[in-house]
């Protein structure tokens, strides 16, 4: 019980400015990462599902390369490797770029699976109505396949958010890095962990609840 007695709420309050800055950085990086992963997933998912020659194979290489290597190594490669190639990058750029590239690969698979789950005769019906392939995609495949892909893509966004904590390794001051630095000089382990646990779990659990809600709401009529 010594632990609980020694827990000082005021310590969290005293460090609120730094923690809030860290939280904002976490949200900023996550937001850019999620937006980018959404666009990459949508475009490359469509390319994969429609087996567009050359681009589809390139997208496959990208997806397998990212999914079969640790994201932390990818972060190192961006952070130390890009300057060697002549691109000066700062922590913030590496942070959003790494989670975006990582999330995009997983999202490509989510959307590919979603688009491929759309029955072929739906698309044929689109063509029969005189829609061009692009129009058919936008009016038929995207609304139906997108709905199927939505829950698993939100799961990917949750992972993108959790992965921003890895920026500790390159010292980018997002929430985990800030909390880590504060505890390193004060040894306030429980207070700092409480902050991290509450923030991450609240966001992750809210998004998970949203997935369950969407799964019920957006289920295609015939599967209800």
């Amino acid at each position: 019980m010594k632990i609980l007695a020694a827990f000082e709420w005021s310590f969290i309050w005293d460090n609120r400015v730094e923690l809030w800055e860290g939280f904002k950085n976490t949200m900023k990086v996550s937001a850019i990462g999620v937006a980018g992963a959404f666009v990459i997933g949508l475009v490359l998912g469509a390319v994969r599902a429609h087996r567009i020659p050359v681009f589809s194979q390139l997208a496959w290489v990208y997806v397998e390369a990212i999914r079969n290597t640790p994201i932390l190594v990818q972060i190192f490669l961006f952070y130390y490797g890009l300057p060697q190639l002549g691109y000066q990058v700062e922590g913030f750029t590496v942070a959003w770029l790494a989670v975006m590239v990582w999330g995009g690969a997983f999202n490509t698979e989510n959307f590919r699976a979603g688009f491929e789950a759309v029955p072929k005769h739906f698309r044929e019906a689109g063509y029969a109505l005189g829609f061009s392939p692009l129009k058919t995609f936008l009016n038929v495949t995207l609304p139906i396949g997108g709905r199927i892909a939505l829950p698993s893509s939100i799961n990917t966004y949750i992972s993108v958010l959790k992965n921003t904590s890895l920026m500790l390794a390159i010292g980018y001051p997002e929430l985990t890095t800030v909390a880590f630095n504060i505890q390193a000089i004060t040894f306030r382990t429980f207070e700092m962990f409480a902050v991290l646990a509450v923030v991450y779990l609240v966001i992750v659990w809210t998004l998970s609840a949203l997935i369950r809600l969407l799964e019920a709401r957006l289920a295609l009529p015939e599967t209800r």
Partner: protein
Amino acid sequence: MPELPDWFRPVAEYMLREGLPETLKLAALAVTASTVIGIVLGTLLTIHFLPLQSLIRLYIEVWRGLPILVTILFIYWLPAYDVGPLHIQLNAYMSAALGLSLWGSAQVAEATRGAVQSIPKEQHEAAAALGFGWAGRHRFVIVPQALRRLLPPMVGLLVNIIQNTTIAFVIGINEFLQAGNRQFENLTTQTGNGHPFTIFGFVLVVFFIISFPLTLFARYLERRLV
């Protein structure tokens, strides 16, 4: 084919000799612990007893919800404490193994619950008719069948855990990424050029060579067994 530069050979040898075994040992430990704990918790989760279910649910949602990095750091930060006569202080290696296992066991528990519940209830009834109690029914009839469906996600977990061992980097364990990073820092101080692109590229390639066949194997199992 271009010749490998002179500096590369000792660097790669160090990484493969010192770093890689550490990565594989850590992964083996975490996968074993995750599997055992996860299968037990996942099976228990199928019992309709609310207090027990809520407790296991909480365990799963907490360790799955937190970034693994945060879990590992917290365990590593914990000050030493005494439980009766035991003086407990986890070193970096145990902290990383425990953190990975908490996350992994939560994943396995969830997958096991799904697999156990996917076994038709006639199997339960038939086993019960033969005189098996709950434990015997699960030990001899339900879990062996569920394990088959569990195999593809378990191989997937293995791939994930191998990749996530790199997170142990942050608490100073000399796993493969750390070994590469140390060589990168040595080269930087000695020669001024750390060759980060080549070294971390090499780390990436080795992880890919380990993970990709396992990923293909998981997909093959999924097609075969499900």
